[in-house]
């Protein structure tokens, strides 16, 4: 049966089979069109515009002056897709619910909240455990579910929510097979006026090559997939309509464990001169060009922020320490010589200044081919500079636990992009997270930085915040605890033959990536206009 109306065909997830699961709390199991499209966020923050809020279910929010609470006000006349009212009770219910069922709390927001209080039918106040100026960013990540449905769910973890009742633009599942499903317009959507797309169609595509062939023959409107040699394989097939735009996303950096079990390595790794030299020996551009097909963006910001957080950048950091974050083989080798890392025992490899050998195992998870390529390229120059380096590719799980424990020498690590540089810093350098998260893999701590970061969330004053952040950047840039290499791209391909209104490099209104980690995709959906039939 043909679905009537304007159908937008998109690929958000790659899978071998579709399972009917629209449980918005199941990050790994729910269909990727569940968040945002089915369960609308309170607010969507536009990262490309300095976190400008786009109010969705909430029409406003207000952070208390002491930063110890935040109050959201819902829009008027909101309805669930089954026609029931959507009000503050549902919000409170949702937060109580995830507090009761910790397995549901996929963004660990409960831990930050003291209580959630209904003020009136449209107003909810979140009381925090600690002052936090950035809490709104976290809270909006949790989908709000209807109390009248979820209160009766026996086991919300395994609940598949096959017939979802949602608040977003696309809530009705009109067709579901393991090979394709369609998700259509919410009859009670509050913003229906802006919604020109009637249905989303999600064909099952198992991997990048399949997405590519679907893209190339024009059957997909919107996709997020790695495509090799995209200008030839995709754009050239129909240059007028086949388009793409890659935005920088998570930071990939080279990391060293400051607490690595190997005593000799540890001596070198904890020496900032060694780290700086190492950083200068990484040929970032080649890695980007070859391992990444030229898609990623070189990150040569010693403060590890780069393009992504350009609006927060402290030019001073780059001016003072920039030379340590860009490739210069000669300088790097000279720096090593100067710091005393020379071949003491004549085995052809550089040793510590005290003569003990440095033998580095470069760890990268098995099967992560682009990283493996990147490591191999990085190793070329490192080896040429006289370092004794080999690569190992353990199981991802083993890799993760080694990183968490700090029991490794050298690795690549990725850190998701966020709305504010505070997040990458706190995730990477928070001593409280040592041994808990792989993002703290370097196990590098700096009291001054910790203090600055703590202050940062405590201030409401933008100017003060900027000063703090500038200082933090200087500290990071000086110590180079992580060696930035590149920001991976967010892949975004689209086809203009059926719909227009796409964000692109000329009009970077928000991030249009259709992956489930980008709430701004909702904005993109609402901006689409069908091309009038000829």
């Amino acid at each position, binding site marked *: 049966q043909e679905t009537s109306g304007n159908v937008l065909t998109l690929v958000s997830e790659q899978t071998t089979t579709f399972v009917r699961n629209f449980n918005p709390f199941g990050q790994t199991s729910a269909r990727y069109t569940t968040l945002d499209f089915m369960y609308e966020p309170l607010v969507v923050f536009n990262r490309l515009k300095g976190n400008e809020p786009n109010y969705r279910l909430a029409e406003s929010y207000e952070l208390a002056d002491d930063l110890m609470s935040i109050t959201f006000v819902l829009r008027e006349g909101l309805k669930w897709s089954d026609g029931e009212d959507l009000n503050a009770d549902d919000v409170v219910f949702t937060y109580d619910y995830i507090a009761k069922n910790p397995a549901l709390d996929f963004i660990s927001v409960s831990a930050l909240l003291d209580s959630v209080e209904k003020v009136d039918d449209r107003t909810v106040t979140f009381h925090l455990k600690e002052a936090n100026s950035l809490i709104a960013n976290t809270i909006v990540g949790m989908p709000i579910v209807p109390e009248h449905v979820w209160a009766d769910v026996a086991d919300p973890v395994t609940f598949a929510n096959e017939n979802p009742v949602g608040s977003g633009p696309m809530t009705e599942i009109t067709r579901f097979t393991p090979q394709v499903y369609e998700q259509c317009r919410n009859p009670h959507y509050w913003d229906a006026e802006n919604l020109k797309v009637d249905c989303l169609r999600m064909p099952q595509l198992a991997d*990048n*090559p399949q997405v*590519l*062939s679907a893209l190339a023959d024009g059957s997909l409107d919107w996709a997020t997939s790695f495509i*090799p*040699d995209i200008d*030839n*394989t995709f754009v050239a097939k129909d240059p007028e309509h086949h388009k793409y735009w890659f935005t920088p996303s998570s930071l990939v950096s080279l990391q060293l464990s400051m607490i690595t079990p190997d005593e000799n390595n540890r001596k070198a790794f904890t020496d900032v001169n060694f780290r700086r030299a190492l950083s200068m020996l990484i040929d970032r551009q080649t890695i980007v060009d*070859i*391992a990444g097909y030229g898609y990623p963006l070189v990150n040569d910001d010693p403060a590890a922020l780069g393009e992504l957080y350009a609006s927060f950048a402290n030019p001073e950091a780059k001016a003072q320490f920039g030379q340590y974050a860009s490739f210069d083989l000669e300088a790097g080798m000279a720096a090593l010589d100067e710091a005393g890392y020379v071949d003491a025992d004549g085995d052809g490899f550089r040793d510590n200044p005290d003569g003990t050998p440095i033998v580095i195992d470069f760890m990268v998870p*098995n*099967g992560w*081919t682009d990283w*493996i*390529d990147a490591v*191999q*390229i990085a190793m*070329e120059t490192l080896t040429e500079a006289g370092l004794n380096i*080999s*690569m*190992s*590719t*353990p*199981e991802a799980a*083993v890799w993760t636990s080694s990183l968490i424990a700090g029991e490794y020498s050298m690795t690549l690590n990725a850190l998701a992009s966020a709305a504010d540089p505070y997040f990458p810093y706190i995730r990477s350098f928070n001593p409280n997270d040592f041994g808990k998260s792989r993002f703290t893999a370097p196990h590098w701590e700096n009291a001054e930085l910790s203090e600055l970061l703590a202050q940062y969330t405590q201030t409401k004053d933008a100017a003060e915040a900027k000063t703090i952040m500038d200082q933090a950047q200087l500290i990071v840039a000086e110590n180079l605890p992580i060696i930035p290499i590149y920001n991976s791209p967010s892949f975004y391909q689209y086809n203009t033959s059926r719909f227009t209104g796409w964000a692109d490099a000329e009009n970077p209104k928000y991030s249009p990536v259709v992956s489930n980690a980008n709430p701004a995709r909702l904005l993109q959906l609402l901006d689409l206009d069908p091309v009038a039939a000829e």
Partner: protein
Amino acid sequence: MKLLSQLLHNKKALVGLIILTIIVLVAIFAPLLTEYSPTRRVGRPHQAPSWDHWLGTTRLGHDVFSRLVHGARVSLAVGFGAGLMITVIGTVLGVIAGYKGGVVDEVINFFTNMVLVVPNLPLLLVLAAFIGQASPLVIAIILGLTSWAWGVRVTRSETLSIRQRDFVKSAEMLGEPAWRIMLFEIFPNLISIVGINFIGSVIFAVITEATLEFLGLGDPNTVSWGIMLYNAQNAAALSVGAWWDILAPCFALAFLGLGLALLNFAIDEIANPRLRTGGMLNRWTRMVRIGEGKL
């Protein structure tokens, strides 16, 4: 020795041996055959075959020809290493089970049948996945430990029939100890079966190693045909039109497989004279045609 001279007289075996020799020589002299290192970037990504790069370059800019000739080493080493292990285990267990009979046989036979009904490749996949970063050595070892069952089965049934032969009986009557009977009376008569088993196991090991690596369960540090396939597949060599990247290891594998298979076929013919189709049949056809006689 007799086997060897017979091998040299068999056309199929000869072709097989030549193929194998070429590959072995290429593997041994790999560094002399190419100026390029197999693990360094020596060109732009995915350059088509040219005078500089006979078989083009990979996505990373490695020289395909260099990787191919160096990769032969791993394929051969794993093939022959695992093949040897499979054969040794299979033959030892098979001869013991077949000769000893009784409980020993029951036990060995049970496990053999057991291993035969557990699907091999999936099991290997799972094992490799659990072990993680399966280097060629690890692959060879798990291949050796999981694939001996077929060998036991054929050796055992052959041993059973040899055991019935009078020369084994007479050795028993002479009071030869059991191990001597197995080693010196039965085993020499199994040479061709063992040979077939060995070559068959080598083929199996080469194919399986390549398959495991192709599926991404190998160690990316190795230079081998399976890893080449894996890298090519990952670089979407087919969809970007870099056929040389994927076809080179394909043909290398097929070539090695063909050589080994020819050899195996020939051993089969030598072991079983009925299977032989020597020059006499050609001669016969010719003689019938010129009317020297008929059937």
